[in-house]
């Protein structure tokens, strides 16, 4: 049964990725189309590829109070949490609503498995070494457990781990909790960090490019893996009449096709879009911009270019921004939601970075360069392993006009 969901106010958001920490760094990188990708200097065993690495994560241990949570993934989370005044916004919301009335839903695919990998490199008598013998960090809820403590939130607390759709699906979960009145607000987001599992794992699947990724290029050769942290605060629109950025709705579906490749027909992705349109009360003709999943894998980009050509009118502009950030996997949903919100706020269409020769399958919908134009409704696509699809719709409204 299709249920329409009322819009929610996005009252704070932030992103940290290879292009920099916080929204200003992202806006600058988008404006200049400056990529954060660099040759792989991360792995202990060499792997010839490019990565989107966040500078300085290693040198910032967590505050002593959170010592049991200390690991690279949670350091990246903490760095991300401390940008754009986000902590202060959450503290104010906690004052307003109470700690039990704010949900926390975070997406991650890696969680802190990098710490488990490190433990296995330094085994002592077939046991994790003492400094890493901490159960808090060797499980997939490590990120959310840490952030719940750091933000002192006592509401529903959930990790969603559906590979590359993880931190898009958190918006859908939060929307349902707020709509049912179980909470008044939700902190959503996601963090994924570089680690051997994803670099050598995607390499084993022959999905990693030896050069910087080129989404939708005719000669694209695969993905560049990146890391990122991002968060957003969602509240009821009617309680925040001054808010101008809104989540209009979320759509979800399953491909039921293959564990590690998308259904080439795009049927699953299309179902997620129709689910989204129903909930948001819009149709394809209302969409001004789509931040595509656009990983630079052969199969995703072919499927997604055909999807755009099939469903959207010529005035809908589309692009992938993974040429700037890399594919941040479980954090891609939140980073690209933040980029979509920036595009709405600033009134521009981000160019599809990294392309030399566009794939001939790409229709004129594609914005190869930045375009300055007001946009009112924008989507963000996230498609993950196991055929997990999530699409989000955001809108910019004038104060007092709730979409």
């Amino acid at each position, binding site marked *: 049964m299709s*249920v329409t969901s009322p819009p929610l106010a996005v009252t704070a958001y932030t992103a940290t990725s290879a292009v920099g920490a916080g929204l200003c760094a992202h806006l600058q990188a988008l404006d200049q189309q400056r990529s954060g990708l660099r040759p792989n200097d991360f792995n202990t065993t060499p792997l010839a590829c490019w990565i989107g690495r966040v500078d300085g994560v290693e040198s910032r241990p967590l505050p002593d109070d959170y010592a049991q949570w200390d690991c690279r993934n949670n350091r990246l989370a903490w760095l991300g949490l401390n940008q754009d005044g986000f902590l202060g916004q959450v503290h104010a919301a906690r004052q307003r609503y109470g700690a039990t009335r704010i949900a926390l839903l975070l997406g991650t695919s890696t969680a802190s498995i990098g710490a488990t*990998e490190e433990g296995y490199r330094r085994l002592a008598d*077939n046991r994790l070494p003492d400094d890493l013998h901490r159960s808090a960090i*060797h499980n997939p809820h490590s990120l959310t457990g840490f952030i719940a403590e750091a933000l002192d939130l006592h509401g529903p*607390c*959930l990790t969603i781990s559906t590979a590359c759709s993880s931190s898009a699906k958190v918006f859908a979960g939060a929307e349902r909790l707020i709509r049912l009145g*179980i909470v008044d607000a939700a902190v959503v987001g996601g963090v994924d960090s570089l680690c051997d599992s994803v670099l050598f794992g995607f390499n084993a699947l022959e999905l990693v490019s030896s050069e910087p990724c080129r989404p939708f290029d005719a000669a694209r050769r695969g993905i560049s893996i990146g890391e990122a942290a991002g968060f957003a605060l969602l509240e009821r629109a009617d309680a925040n009449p001054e808010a101008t950025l809104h989540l209009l709705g979320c759509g*979800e579906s399953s491909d039921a096709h293959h564990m590690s490749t998308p259904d080439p027909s795009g049927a699953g992705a299309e179902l997620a879009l129709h689910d989204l349109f129903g909930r948001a009360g819009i149709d394809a003709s209302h969409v001004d911009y789509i931040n595509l999943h656009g990983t630079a894998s052969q199969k995703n980009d072919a499927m997604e270019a055909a999807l755009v050509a099939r469903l959207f009118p010529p005035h809908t502009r589309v692009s992938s921004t993974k040429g700037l950030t890399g594919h941040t996997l479980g954090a891609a949903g939140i980073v690209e939601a933040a980029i979509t919100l920036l595009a709405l706020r600033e009134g521009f269409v981000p160019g599809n970075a990294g392309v030399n020769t566009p794939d001939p399958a790409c229709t004129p919908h594609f914005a190869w360069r930045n375009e300055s134009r007001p946009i009112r409704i924008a989507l963000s696509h996230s498609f993950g392993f196991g055929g997990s699809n999530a699409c989000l719709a955001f809108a910019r409204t004038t104060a007092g006009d709730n979409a």
Partner: protein
Amino acid sequence: MTALRVQIEGIGLWTPQATDFDALRRVLGGDVPLESVTRPTASALSINERRRAPESVLVAMEVALQAVNMSRRSADSLACVFASAYGDQATTDYMCRVLAKTPTELSPTRFHNSVHNASAGYWTIATDCHAPSSAICAGPASFGAGLLEAAVQACAQQCPVLLVCSDTAGVGPLGELIGCQLAFGAALVLSPAADGRMPQLNLALVEETSRHALLPATCTAWMRDNPSAACLPLMAMLANNGGECVVAASAQRGLLVKMEVSA
């Protein structure tokens, strides 16, 4: 808060000493289980996939199919939530061992089996399910958080939802640290409460995190050895057709589950 009211349409359960809900009823009735099965049937999967799939996926598939069969729902349109506290620890142990020594020899199949949503992926592919699927965790509170998520989906979307919660035994240095020593899975098909003869549950978030009636020693041992067995107080209520319990839904909050006795 709006009361969350759901009904239970189907139940699945598998652990080596109790391979379905009827076997659990016998354990709850005081029987001491003797037989021990090593592998679930997982007949939702094709023979090929059954061979390729790790134990974690087989346990999840087994309980999911039991619950869906009992509900008489069609799996291909059923939204699903797969919860697991630790995911596939045996695969994580394999990955970390290989990555520590010969990372370029990592198996691509074992890598894609390592994602937390592997069971959700196998299930939706096997049943041709295009409805939304999710994979979640919340540490030791994964069952309660999964129950909340599934109930919220059912009530917010007005649709039936399959909830699966499963964990398998850990191995190696990771297994030593975590201490999960048993394979255990449970599944429920739940839908918005309606007048009828199905068990009705009222759910509410509360300050306490755990409270339940006394369970047989076999069940408390399972709860000690596997976080997904945190569902057993609720399973006992379903077997006894009444009662209430609190299951942990996070480090801070529990889910008070009250069962309305059917007429």
